[in-house]
């Protein structure tokens, strides 16, 4: 797998490069600005770009804007956005606009290289990836009486995995269950929450995230 890394902090860029190379990922370029990123993507045609959300000049949402620009020209290039922001707002901004082949991870998570590589692989397969911390904040946020109260522990676990962007097969593998069992869980959960069942995987992720944020 070939990736481009964009981050304005050299220490992080280099560390990340080291980790990814160690994990067998080919880093074809590392850049410090979004303009450079767009150019390098055009030049190297990587499988994915790993992008810091805040880059010069304003240090706000340059990463998301860069993904936008890359996707307009090269929709098949995956995008993994790394961020300090815990709030689901930015993740939703990314996933709502690009539900396919994109992911949003918290920056301090990437020191676990297995998570990072797993996310890149899933993105490469067309899934979307949402950071587990963000999802668990959503699942656990204070609510008054809600249909979530009626879900079992296992169902809550499955719900979180759906929100993180896992497919039924992915969930089954993670929880050591059969795909059939997972499908049953998913059906139960969605009907308890009143979310219409949809065959479309991406629509399912968005619907669950929207439900949890409301």
């Amino acid at each position, binding site marked *: 797998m070939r990736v481009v890394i964009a981050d304005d902090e050299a220490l992080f860029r280099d560390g990340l490069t080291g980790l990814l190379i160690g994990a067998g990922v080919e880093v074809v370029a590392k850049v410090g600005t979004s303009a450079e990123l767009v150019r390098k993507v055009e030049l190297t045609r990587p499988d994915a770009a790993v992008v810091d959300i805040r880059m010069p000049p304003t240090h706000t949402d340059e990463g998301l804007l860069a993904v936008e620009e890359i996707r307009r020209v090269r929709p098949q290039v995956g995008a993994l956005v790394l961020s300090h922001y815990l709030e689901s707002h930015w993740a939703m901004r990314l996933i709502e606009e690009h539900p396919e082949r994109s992911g949003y991870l918290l920056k301090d998570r990437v*020191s676990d290289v297995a998570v990072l590589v797993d996310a890149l692989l899933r993105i490469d397969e067309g899934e979307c990836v949402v950071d587990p911390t963000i999802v668990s904040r959503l699942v656990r946020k204070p609510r008054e009486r809600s249909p979530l109260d009626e879900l079992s522990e296992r169902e809550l676990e499955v719900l979180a995995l759906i929100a993180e962007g896992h497919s039924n097969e992915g969930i089954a593998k993670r929880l050591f269950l059969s795909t059939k069992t997972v499908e049953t869980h998913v059906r139960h959960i969605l009907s308890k929450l009143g979310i219409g069942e949809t065959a479309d995987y991406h629509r399912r992720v968005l619907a669950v995230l929207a439900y949890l944020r409301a």
Partner: protein
Amino acid sequence: MFRKGAAVAVAGVCVAVGVFTLDLVHGDPDSSFAGAGVLGRGALAAAGFALAAAGLAAWLRGGHRFGSLLVAGSLAWFLLEWIVPKNPSSLAFTTGLVLYACCFPLIGHAVLAFPSGRLDSAVERITVAGAYCVAAVVLGLLPTLVFDPAAGCNECPGNLLLVTGRDSIHDRLVRVGVWLGAASAAALAIVVVLRLVRASPTARRSRGLVLVAGAVYLGLVAATYATSIDRGLLWNGDLQRRLWVAQAVAIVGIVVGLVWSWIRARRGSSAVARLVLELAHSPPAGGLRDALAEIVGDPTLELAYPIEDAGRLVDTDGRPVVFAAGKEHTTLVGDGRALAVAAHAPGVLDDDQLVADVAAAARLVLENERLQAAVHARVDDLRASRARILEAGDAERQRLERDLHDGAQQRLVGLALSLRLLRSRLDSGAETPLGRSIAAADGDLHEAIEGLRRLAHGIFPAVLSDGGLSAAVVALAEDAPIPIHVESLPSDRYAPAVETAAYGLVAAAAAAATARVFVRAGRSDGRLVLEIDAGEIGNELEQTELDDRVSAAGGRLEVARPDGRVVIRAEFPCAS
């Protein structure tokens, strides 16, 4: 007292002169202008007595100079008839000889000097002086000095001013005098017409009749002289007599005009008096403007108050005022200070007396409104400076938040990666003491990163500037210790100060509430209305700080406490 006595004496003189003149005309109708008919004598008496009465009235109203001009004009009007040959008195005859032509310069002077008694321009002064000179010297004094009645007028009484009888010089002087009389009366008429043309609409309304009648009178005088040129002296033929009767009518017209303008002025001052009464009762905000607008008859009139220091003009709410173009500005002065500036249609406040009366009548209210305006302006200044301070603080906090993220936090994360790299190089040595201490350092590092993230978020929630109020409230609900129900919240963007203040309210309510918070927001009448039901609260709200923020954003905050609950309602202005 003295003035009244003098007036009575002058009135007596006028009546006596009038009666004496009518008697002269009766005795020698053919030589007079009035003639034997009732019309002529009526005209003589009406014009003469009307002028005298108007002069006395002006005198009693305080217009001494002006009143004197009218009284003198009245006497000169009668004097024209004193040069009849059958005049029994040499003194009266001589007086008539010198002054018979002086009526038109006096009346012209009075018409031009109305109402102040003074002439405005050099042109007017020169024209009036020239007319006096022609009438009193060229037509009056000089021919009298050389006119010997004994030479050609056997019936005439003696000429007391006779120096030496020179008929040819006399005739030549009079011939020139008649020319000049026609010219100077015409010049006066033109000056009066110019005055009328240049007058403002208000001045024209109040003084127009006087000026028109004056111009007509002077024109008729000029015509009388002009038609006498052939004869070489002021002739009293049929045409001239008719012109003379018309002069009398014009003079009555002038007097009617004077009375009309006095009535108007009285109406104006009674409106001012009413204004005083109204103001004494209860001066409503903006009421002074309305009252003034009514008095001067200009509904578009605007009032503004000067603030000493900055030379600014503000309205009663302290907002800066920019007058519409094409308006005339009049400053209302009281105690030597500018109390207010009125912008109005050109000419409606030309009457200096009216302006002074209004300023005097409304001085207290004007002063009051001016102070009110000044206080409002100060408050606005303060509010603006408070908003600037808060804005500067917010910008600084936003900068700090970025610095923390992009400086310290970035480096810490980079460090964590380096540590991880180091650990992976240790390979299977993770269980060695070195590996364990690296793992411990890694854990500490992540705690530090998490702590830093919370700190940065507490300094300024970046989601507020990125996603606006609704995104920030949704994010707040993810992290709050109690449920935050967002019932409705438009995802529109508002001014940063408004978003920060509104978010601050929700955050404060969420921090203080014990059970749950309901948030409801919507637009109404171009305002963002935010309602927060915080239920029962554990910690007291920092209401002063919230109030400060809301009002710095131009909004209004109400905190109600129905049955133990805390309900916050705030309204903010929002641009379209």
